[in-house]
């Protein structure tokens, strides 16, 4: 029981931090530009695929740097030549544009890399168990993922709070028009933020690809969950995104690890439903079964009871 808990916590942490790497970029982009980037997870997928292709020639480590940069440049180009054009048609059009982009990127990935799963693996040096607890291994690569994620957040936090550009960005988030008046080039800042945000997503893809498998559906799998996170956390709140990422990561991980279910609950209550009834499925549900839908359940509940999210400031 205890070892299950520990491993579930560690795995939840890995997922949660990974999710935050996506969610932080999405949040930054949203707070600056008011755009919920539907294609955010597609850039994550591109990160994994770019890294896979690059690593075929150079191995993992150069890919770790190159792939996110490429993704970020691509993201900046998308902002410059796509999103900026759509901007004048309003937020709904922007949302639909990024939605179409997600669709397009998935098709493009299938065009270039095919439908099959790619054999993108973690580097050999990290291919050993970091420690063994109660006979179960914890892979070093997962520790590496935790390390990278935390390093990125520290860097991000530093940039946002200590540097000039970070302060301009913070100002642009709260007062987009005044920053323009001060003579800063707001469109350029937008492009940069979009590039960095998508680049972070790309980095998440690079390190997640080997663990969560690299296949054309990987954006879909994570995409809506990241959306859920930024909404639950409160649109535009970085702290909210962090809490929600960890919450969802841990929640799912615990749900998958546990073997509890409705039958246990019913037993405990002393009720039995053994008649043949279409709703019988409900009484047989187990936690691992409903793990995938937990984030959405949480989303709907949060939106009903607290539409601005856990840490939301905006009354939308």
């Amino acid at each position, binding site marked *: 029981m205890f070892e299950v808990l520990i491993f579930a916590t560690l795995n939840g942490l890995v997922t949660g931090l990974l999710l935050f790497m996506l969610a932080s970029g999405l949040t930054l982009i949203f707070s600056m530009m008011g755009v919920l980037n539907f294609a955010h997870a597609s850039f994550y997928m591109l990160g994994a695929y770019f890294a896979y292709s690059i690593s075929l020639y150079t191995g993992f480590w150069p890919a770790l740097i190159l792939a996110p940069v490429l993704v970020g440049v691509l993201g900046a180009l998308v902002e410059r030549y796509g999103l900026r054009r759509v901007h004048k048609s309003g937020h*709904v059009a922007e949302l639909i544009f990024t939605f179409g982009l997600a*669709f*397009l990127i998935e098709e493009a990935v299938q065009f270039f890399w095919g439908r099959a799963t790619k054999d993108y693996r973690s580097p050999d040096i990290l291919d050993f168990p970091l420690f063994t607890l109660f006979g179960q291994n914890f892979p070093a690569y997962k520790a590496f993922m935790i390390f990278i994620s935390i390093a990125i957040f520290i860097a991000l936090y530093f940039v946002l709070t200590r540097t000039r550009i970070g302060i301009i960005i913070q100002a642009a988030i709260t007062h987009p028009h005044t920053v323009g008046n001060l003579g800063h080039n707001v469109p350029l800042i937008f492009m940069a933020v979009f590039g960095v945000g998508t680049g972070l997503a790309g980095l998440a893809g690079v390190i997640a690809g080997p663990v969560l498998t690299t296949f054309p559906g990987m954006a879909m799998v994570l995409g809506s969950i990241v959306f859920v996170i930024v909404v639950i956390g409160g649109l535009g709140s970085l702290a909210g995104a962090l809490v929600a990422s960890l919450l969802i990561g841990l929640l799912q991980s615990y749900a998958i690890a546990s073997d509890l279910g409705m039958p246990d609950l019913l037993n405990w209550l002393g009720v039995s439903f053994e008649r043949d009834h279409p709703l019988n499925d*409900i009484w047989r549900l187990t936690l691992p079964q409903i793990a995938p839908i937990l984030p959405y359940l949480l989303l709907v509940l949060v939106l009903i009871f607290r*539409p601005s999210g856990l840490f939301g400031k905006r009354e939308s």
Partner: protein
Amino acid sequence: MFKFAVWIIFAIVIVLLPQFFTSLLSVSILNQMAIAIVFALSYNMLLGQGGMLSFGHAVYFGLGGFMAVHALLGIEDGDYFFSVTLIPLVGGLFGLLAALFIGSFSTHKAGTVFAMISLGVGELIAASSLILVSFFGGEAGVSGDRTYGPTFFGYDFAQDIQVYYLAAAWMFIATLAMYLFTQTPAGRMANAVRDNPERAEFIGYSARRVRLISFVMSGFFAGIAGGLFAVNYEILTEQNLNAVTSGNVLLMAYIGGLGFFIGPIIGAVVLTLMNSVLSHYTTLWMLYLGIMFVLTVMFLPNGLTGFLMMHRTPWHLGKIRLLIKPYIVTSIPGAVFALSLVAMVEMAHSSEAEFVFLGASFNSSGIVSWGVLIAIALGSFIALRRSLPALREAWAQANAIDSGEQK
């Protein structure tokens, strides 16, 4: 009276269509179109008319469809005794109930909150459908058989063409009903709330209630589309209520044009045709669809219908002639350019050594083939760029109110 004539012509066209398109394939495409039209129109009740961007509209389509299949099974088992012609109504009513329930908490706000709830609910129900096997049938889905129950004036719906008349009749009724809805107080207030929910409250309307009415109506018609799907395909799976289907209907409505009643109809017809025809010729048609969608959002924010409607002013001014020549001059290199890109994409994707495109044969690994295609692409692109200023000039002239006569 003009409007009345339009509806009569519409009815005549849908009755006559199968006389011209008789093959099995075309009848099946027509059936798909009828279903897609109802579904896309129901979607536009939300987005185009009510300002509610939904990423989970397939929920009502799918739930209606599943209920309809269960009704088919009930007829087959002899539990109920009614005609298959009424099955779409079963779907509609179930879609309505589902929308009433979900709308009761999701229509508080439009905008991002609504979009996110629709996404969450969509994912939730799609995922649940794989868990609740006895109603949704798991991965395999649920199938029925439409040929049971009392016959309808001799129709037992064993053949697709009979299904066409059923689908077409329902499509006509649903389209008419949805059009009439736009002409009622509730329909007009839906537009008002879309434009400015706050002011709507200051003229006595609860924005939330107005949205809920549109939402429930929209669920009803989506359910009818789902019911038609059930009759046509006799099977429903998780596919029919997941995000892909929700995305598809958004695509159809948007490409057709959200701002016009007829927009989603055009979108549904065009995309269904593209789906069936393109998928026949190339496995990459989804890629082309994605490109087309993104380009539409970027360059034609009002969709295909919006593009057509842009020509109203030149038409009324009697200057549409001015546009004919520049359009031809631009579209020829444009088409050549697009086709040469497509050819390169297809060639890159082709695994065979000899690659045939539009009757021309290329060696897909040969430098010469690539060189020729690239040259064509470049040449046509330059020609395209060159033709644009003349087109712009002609457009300005065609829209200028008094220039022609005074010169």
